């Protein structure tokens, strides 16, 4: 199995200065099952004991799943200005 980070590193990104994903970590702190972690194909969301959730927005593949991944309304997602440029698609 090829590791996720290795796979993501093959892609071409222009990373925005600011994150295009906002999280209400107050909600994440009370969330046990963390469906966003299961659903995101890019490993953008990492559970964190102290902060509830860490967002690695630079990994985002812009699939759009973040718009429906969180049933508790903790994620606010918009598409980035830069972001990924697929070369094969």
């Amino acid at each position: 199995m090829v590791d996720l980070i290795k796979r993501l590193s093959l892609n071409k990104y222009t990373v925005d200065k600011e994150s295009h994903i906002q999280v209400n970590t107050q909600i994440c702190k009370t969330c046990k099952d963390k469906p966003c972690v299961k659903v995101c194909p890019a490993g953008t969301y990492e559970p964190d004991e102290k902060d509830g959730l860490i967002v690695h927005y630079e990994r985002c593949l812009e699939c759009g799943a973040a718009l429906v991944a969180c049933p508790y309304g903790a994620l606010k997602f918009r598409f980035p200005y830069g972001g990924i440029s697929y070369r094969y698609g």
Partner: protein
Amino acid sequence: MSFDADVVVVGGGLAGISAAITATREGLSVIVLERGDYSGSKNVAGGRMYIHALKDLVDISDAPLERKVEREIYEVYCGNGRKISFSYEDKNRVDSYTVLRAKFDQWFAKKAEEEGVLFSYSTLVSNARREKGGITLETNRGEVRAPLVIEADGVTAGISRYLGLRNLKPSMLMLGVKEVIGTAWDEGVARTIIGFEGLKGGGFVYSNRDTLSIGLTVKVDSLQGSEVKAQDIVEKFREMIGIEGPILEYSAHLIPYYGYANLPQLNAENLIVTGDAAGFLINDGFTIRGMDLAIESGKVAGKAAKLIKDENYADTSIYVKMLEESFVMRDMKKAWKSFSLLGEKRIFSDYPKVLCEVLGDMFLVNGERRTLREELMEKIKEENLNLTQMVLDLVRFIG
């Protein structure tokens, strides 16, 4: 109030480009807003296009299509190293081609530019509001106003969401994850694979000229409660089907999975919705297609735009009427019964398992031979399946 064009198309993919070409030919002024640096840069597609709708729109003699699909392979994985497969081959068919959309959409956009369509790339629409007989789009390059917006912004349907016309639901969406592998096969193959980790969905392999497109599509609601993470599934899948070679790109995208009876709102005042944004995707068990529906709905939208303009933009419902008469809605409607059936667990999990068990025993010789009927009845009973239900499902599937 002044408008920037007769029509603003949001999204420069298949639907948007088709709409823009058609509307331009109808004599309208058109601007396409594309958030990527080039058309296709934000696109992920499994990899096969049925080309009938494209052929009617533009000359495809120089289109960057990958391989003509000559062989269809179906595989059902039933666990414990068991697998059922069948294939269908026709060397003479020319109806579908594998395709890589980053390359393809750039070619298609160039075709549109040659016909006078204006594209504004790297332009992200961040909000839309209705204003004085039109829609105002807020973008990173300033505001754009039009009396008619053709929404072609893909499955996440931003414009419909901004205008309060759409709520995305996990139950109506699939997640597609894909890898492009640097391995070449010497024929055009489409492989459909069922039976992976008990997830609702399936896998695919398409052979391109120099690469393979492999991936999985899985219902988002089935992932939310799953044991396996979306970030791992494509690699596990690749190992299961035994495909090797360097990974060239890792990608993911949502896929609309509404079906005819659940389609979202397709028009509103000053707005018509096309392609993935409109939820146009067909899965009838034999074909899975969205690209030809995107192209055709774009064409219909471009033609409807002219009629809508002629009536002073008063009413957009003509678009839906025209769609109903096109193959887009006719085929969506015909596929509905099998489409809804294919969402049931018993189809991709229980039935394949029984089929595998039965075949396993029928191919086995160990001195305890039984008839096919005996085998079938026993396995159906073991799996707690209902024979009446199975017959009903079959009837539903054949349409």
